């Protein structure tokens, strides 16, 4: 879609959102969670990441979010080489991402509304803008009536949707989702997936780690398959 804009002399062409080059991740203790991964994800692409439990899906997402660091190789996201990211640049970098966690990571002491507003408060948006955007996000995940609830008062699936709303409320360029449908029934899963597709249609790059092979098979997107820390399919460019 934006391949027209390849400028001269760029280290990474701007049409690429995520570029892994021979990336390995060795956890302290010696477990090699990822081994020599190389792949690229185009800007505006939607990609599934799958593989058995312990294959390294979460690890891969953590490398992109700069939660973990690559032991060797190079991770470039949105034209930033993460190895060269200074400590003080990390917050700004993370604000360009939307993350959905396997374990939701909501703040128990804050209401649904306040949880979803967090990225906007952190980003320094003004109050009116915050109210408008949070309600829009709540509407998209179908929780408009629960804005005053606390996370404990919600079902697992509802909490997951709050996490999704929080991840997209600041309109990130890149959405990373770790098992976003893990706690949802098939109908809701499909609904959430169509939500991701809608984000993708307006240009957001989406990377979803999931076990849900049935769901993946029903959708026309590229699939990266990890097996014991190695890619076994999907490393090519966009299909």
């Amino acid at each position: 879609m934006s391949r027209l804009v390849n400028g001269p002399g760029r280290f990474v062409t701007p049409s690429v959102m995520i570029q892994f080059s021979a990336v390995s991740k060795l956890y302290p203790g010696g477990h090699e969670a990822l081994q020599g991964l190389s792949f690229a994800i185009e800007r505006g692409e939607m990609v599934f990441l799958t593989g058995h439990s312990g294959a390294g899906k979460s690890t891969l997402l953590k490398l992109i979010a700069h939660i973990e660091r690559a032991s060797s190789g190079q991770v470039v996201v949105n034209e930033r080489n993460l190895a060269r990211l200074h400590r003080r640049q990390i917050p700004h970098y993370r604000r360009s991402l939307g993350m959905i966690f396997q374990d939701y990571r909501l703040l128990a002491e804050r209401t649904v509304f306040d949880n979803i507003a967090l990225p906007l408060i952190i980003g320094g948006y003004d109050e009116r803008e915050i109210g408008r955007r949070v309600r829009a996000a709540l509407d998209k995940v179908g929780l408009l009536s629960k804005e005053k609830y606390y996370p404990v008062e919600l079902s697992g699936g509802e909490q997951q949707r709050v996490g999704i709303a929080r991840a997209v409320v600041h309109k990130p360029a890149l959405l990373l989702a770790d098992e976003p449908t893990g706690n949802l029934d098939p109908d809701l899963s499909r609904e959430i997936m169509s939500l991701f597709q809608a984000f993708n249609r307006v240009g957001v790059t989406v990377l979803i780690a999931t076990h849900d092979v049935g769901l993946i098979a029903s959708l026309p997107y590229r699939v990266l398959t990890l097996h014991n820390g190695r890619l076994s399919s999907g490393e090519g460019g966009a299909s």
Partner: protein
Amino acid sequence: MMPRRRAVTHRPHAPGAAPEAARVRRKNSGSSRLRRYLSLHIQAWWGSLGRIARAPLASFMTIAVIGIALALPGTFLTLLANMQKITAGWEGNMTELSVFLSKDLSNDAAAALTTELESWAEVESVRHITPEQGLAEFQRTLGGDDWLTLLGSNPLPGVLVVRPTVEQAAPERVQSLAERLRDLPEVESVQVDMEWLQRLHAIMALIERGVWILAGLLALAVLLIVGNTIRLTLESRRDEIIVLKLLGATDAFVRRPYLYAGAWYGIFGGVVAVALVSAVLWGLSKPVAQLAALYHSDIVLGWLDWVTAAGLLLGAVVLGYGGARLTVARHLRRIEPD
């Protein structure tokens, strides 16, 4: 949506979300950005007060310890200031120079010298003790036989007891007055009964130094108490801090509520300290007045003055904020997402 996104991809260093944020920011003038910045601070300020209120017992303990730790030196310093005022009065009342006159000076000449000395600016009063009065005094204290017949003649010189004015009562001033008296031809020697005064001054200086050292130690204790309270809060909010960092909060953003919490502890602790010092002084004021009445003195215990009260409050806030700052700087870096 699309055209804007494409424009975004043209800019080499723009991360994806920044244009979105930049667009919103661009709409706003500088003054509204300042307003938003201030509102962030104000939110953190009142928010941290709310959190303190939500853990009332722990907060109360911290505040009480700060209050007591600061009330101790506050009380001692106020009492010391009172004591210095009182002893300054004593110096004038109790410092005396004994001027021993030449043996051959007549009583009339001594009386004339008395009148002359009384006219000196630095002299409050002069009392003349003739050799005869001196011997009579001697005899009265020691009792016994007729000392004059025993000794043959009166060995005592005439003595002028000079008392300096209050302004001249400080040890160095008294010394220079003694020098001046010693230079007079009629004077044999001058004795300054000042040792006790110098001792008193030395003791007071020692007490003052001690109080300041105590104040320093207690200030350190306050730093540690606040630091420890904030450290516990940080630990209990570990998950929240990690989530904030994951969502891209800067260190300043994460840190702010904890620094303000430290300042709040300081403010409340300072108020408690001022209240405690006032209560202690009030409790002491009656016995002090009774004691003073017994000595026919009009000494009253002074209140906590504004300067000390303001100093206590300011010190408490600085210590609270400082204690939080030290702890947060050390611990926040260790709380990272994993």
